């Protein structure tokens, strides 16, 4: 750490939050915010690589993707989206509370954020556990039998009933291609969950800082920056929800 160098450079001694190399707080805040925005740009491309793979395989193996998507629990997915939106609201309100200098309100809102974040992760864990029970985790005894059972028509399996060999082969294919969906599902939701876990860790620190009264209407940059990250993770989920859960939910299809 640069404590020694800060001590050496005493011109900001009266402003403890201001680091030595910045001229004023405004410059420091702007630098941090810009840094976070660029980092979020990086994150877009990080998920972008997976979105690219997703797009191509979705075009290539649409029936399997549609069927696998239907096997995800829509109610739980919708609910979880709502939970994440709640957490975004509490973050936005916490920033507001900091801007107005209300310490306890900040802390409560941040605790609520942590709560919603953990609920989201809990629900995600529950969904993954179900995937495990359904044998929908790639390579862990992966089995797409239930997908075939529920989507006879979509896969054209109904037309193959009197040809056991054809059935068998088509089934092997469905097994493979739906596994690609689930590979991408776990890659995408897993990367998202890792981001959530990091977010919860960061917000624990932020909550502690808020509790200690570190944030004032003049200085609450860490909260603001962490908030940007949290909202971004929320936005990723806003896209993952339709891309994973809503590929094809039409009743007739």
């Amino acid at each position, binding site marked *: 750490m640069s404590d020694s160098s800060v001590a050496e450079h005493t011109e900001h001694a009266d402003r403890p939050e201001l680091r030595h190399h910045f001229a004023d707080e405004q410059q420091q805040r702007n630098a941090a915010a810009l840094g976070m925005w660029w980092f979020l*740009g990086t994150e*877009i491309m990080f998920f972008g*690589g997976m979105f690219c793979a997703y*797009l*191509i395989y979705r075009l290539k193996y649409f029936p399997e993707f549609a069927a696998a998507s239907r096997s995800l629990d*829509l109610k739980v997915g919708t609910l979880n989206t709502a939970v994440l939106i709640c957490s975004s609201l509490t973050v936005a309100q916490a920033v507001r509370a900091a801007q107005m200098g209300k310490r306890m309100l900040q802390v409560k809102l941040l605790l609520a954020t942590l709560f919603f974040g953990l609920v989201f992760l809990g629900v995600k864990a529950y969904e993954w556990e179900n995937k495990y029970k359904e044998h929908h985790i790639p390579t862990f005894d992966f089995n797409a039998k239930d997908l075939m059972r529920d989507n006879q028509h979509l896969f054209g399996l109904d037309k193959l009933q009197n040809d056991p060999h054809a059935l068998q082969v088509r089934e092997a294919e469905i097994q493979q291609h739906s596994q690609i969906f689930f590979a991408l599902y776990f890659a995408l939701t897993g990367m998202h969950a890792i981001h959530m876990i990091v977010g919860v860790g960061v917000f624990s620190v932020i909550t502690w800082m808020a509790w200690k009264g570190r944030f004032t209407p003049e200085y609450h940059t860490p909260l603001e920056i962490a908030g940007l990250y949290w909202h971004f993770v929320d936005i990723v989920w806003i896209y993952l929800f*339709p891309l994973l859960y*809503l590929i094809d*939910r*039409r009743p007739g299809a």
Partner: protein
Amino acid sequence: MSEHTGHIVPSRLNWLVFFILIAATFLTAWIATIDLGPFNTVVALVIATCKASIVVLIFMQVKYTSEKMTKAVLLFAIAWLILLLFLSLTDYSSRFAG
């Protein structure tokens, strides 16, 4: 020095955004069950983009920031993502056809 605090978003606006987001979430889940042909995906993505936009504009305060760079960075990154997807498709779209 009011610059330091930035713009304070009214509480009511935050709540309004919240309700729109929740409503849109249920809306998109419901619309997905109606047969719109190929437009199901389009509608789902349009709704997602609207939701993402208001999060960016209000919650992330991009609407209020005096900083031009924020928008530029955002547009930059999105443009790059589209380049990746679009140019990969120049290969795949014409490969599937053949």
